[in-house]
């Protein structure tokens, strides 16, 4: 397995606040990695660093050996990193299908003038994109609602649609930011199945930020733990469960007899 994403001593400061501090981290091809930590540990910030929303103050982020820090989000997505958001960010005025179609933008051959001229090549490409988008929706059971406005979907479906939309950019690495947030236990089981399925079917590496331990422990091959912007542990789920520092981070230190 070759390495896909690599973070070297990545630090980001917002004024006096060090949100992420000297984090070394990597994700290999096809791997399913979890990123956990208490609230405010810097997990989402780390996502925003990888996807170019923020630029690291110091340190390096490489994707497939090429430095990504300083690039636009859209350029990084073009290299093969796609993400979902902690609080759902769909294109609310568009239909379910158009949300997915919009994400095909990256691989579009006919651009501005193609859209104006509407020649044969343009029409063929439009039809093909529509087909691909519909079949992606089909895989995730959203084909029936393809023409409905996405904001009228139930919560769980909106989360799924975010994943479909991210897949439409043809990523090699998929970043999922708290996909289980707000889901009930049945939906969570379904989500775990879905994430595993996505990873295998599209041959992706998945990096997962999640608070729900059942989900994280259930599907991740490797877990990294952040606290106050520092990486305090990394290992297999069973190693993490036993790690003293992790337990301390979540439950507090054991106190000697009072």
């Amino acid at each position: 397995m070759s390495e896909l994403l690599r973070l070297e001593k990545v630090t980001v400061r917002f004024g006096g606040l060090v949100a992420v501090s000297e984090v070394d981290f990597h994700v290999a091809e096809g791997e399913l990695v979890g990123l956990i930590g208490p609230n405010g540990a810097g997990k989402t910030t780390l996502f925003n660093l990888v996807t170019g929303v923020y630029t690291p103050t110091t340190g390096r982020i490489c994707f497939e050996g090429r430095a990504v820090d300083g690039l636009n989000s859209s350029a990084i997505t073009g290299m093969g990193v796609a993400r979902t958001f902690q609080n759902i960010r769909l294109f609310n005025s568009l239909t379910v299908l158009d949300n997915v179609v919009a994400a095909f933008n990256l691989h579009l051959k006919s651009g501005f003038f193609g859209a104006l001229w509407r020649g044969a090549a343009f029409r063929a490409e439009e039809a093909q994109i529509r087909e691909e988008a519909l079949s992606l929706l089909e895989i995730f059971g959203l084909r029936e609602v393809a023409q409905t406005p996405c904001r009228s979907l139930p919560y769980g479906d909106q989360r799924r649609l975010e994943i479909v939309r991210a897949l439409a950019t043809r990523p090699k690495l998929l970043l999922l930011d708290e996909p289980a947030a707000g889901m009930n236990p049945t939906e969570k089981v379904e989500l775990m199945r879905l994430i595993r399925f996505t990873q295998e079917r599209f041959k992706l590496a998945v990096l997962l930020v999640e608070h729900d331990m059942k989900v994280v422990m259930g599907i991740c091959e490797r877990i990294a733990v952040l606290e106050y912007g520092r990486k305090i542990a990394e290992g297999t789920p069973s190693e993490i469960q036993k790690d003293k520092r992790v337990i301390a981070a979540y439950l507090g230190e054991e106190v000697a007899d009072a």
Partner: protein
Amino acid sequence: MGPRFLLLISVAVMGLVSFLFTGHPELSWPLGQVDDYLLNILILAGINVILAVSLNIVNGHTGQFSLGHAGFMAVGAYGSATLTQINGKVFLADLSFLGNAAPTGLFVLSLLAGGVFAALAGLAVGLPSLRLKGDYLAIVTLGFGEIIRVMIQNTESLGGARGLAGIPPHTSLGWTWGISLLAIYCVGSLVNSTYGRGFLAVRDDEIAAEAMGVNTTRYKVTAFVVGAFFAGLAGALYAHFIGYITPEGFSFLKSVDVVVMVILGGMGSTAGVTVAAIGLTFLNEALREAEQYRMVAFALLLIILMITRPQGLLGGLGRWLPGKGGKP
């Protein structure tokens, strides 16, 4: 019969008109005499349609609030007049090989020049303002419009505050509505494509759009340039319709007029914006009797519509130009 049909019609209308009236710019309509007053209103309505449809791609589809449309219109008006009025004789001599068609040829060139100058101005405003959003962008574009106006006011060769008179009256109903249809076609087909979904994505959520590989910077600049190009064309048509332009005619109030058309028609609805532009032009005339209450009526209409239909006249209804391979 796809959306290209509209393109064909617009080209045909312009071609027919320019063919029929080569050397007779005073004639306006192929069907003989039409009431002059009605004709003038129809031409104004066409110009307003171009303005509203082109502002809609910036304000409606891409969600960037621009208040500088009159500025782009002024660039187009003065840019084109430079060719036909200020340096008219020189250019006409250059085009003498066209024979009778020389004035029409020069007019077409001046239209293009007006559009291109305005598009360049759009690029100049678009690039630095991209870091701004919402109200801040509105202020910058407003400032841009005023800068253009004041610059023209102080440029003696453009007539300064006195304005520029004696612009040859080339604009006909055919030209105006031909270009209106062209604008509707261009904006409609740009937006109704996978490429065009990018504009809507930028409007709905910039961060998500970037994350999905949509280059938001490129889309915003494109929207500005396309919008400005057509505003420039509208300005050029206006100059060659009225025959006399002053910087005051392109004040902030003109920009607001266009914004009102876009909001009334429904942000992002090409059909709605077209209807609103025509409707408001006619309403403006109908209320001419009640001169001093006209603005009151306008404001009331706007208030009532915003309460009853905040999404605008046709906002949120079916899409424009559905076409065969079109979008749902």
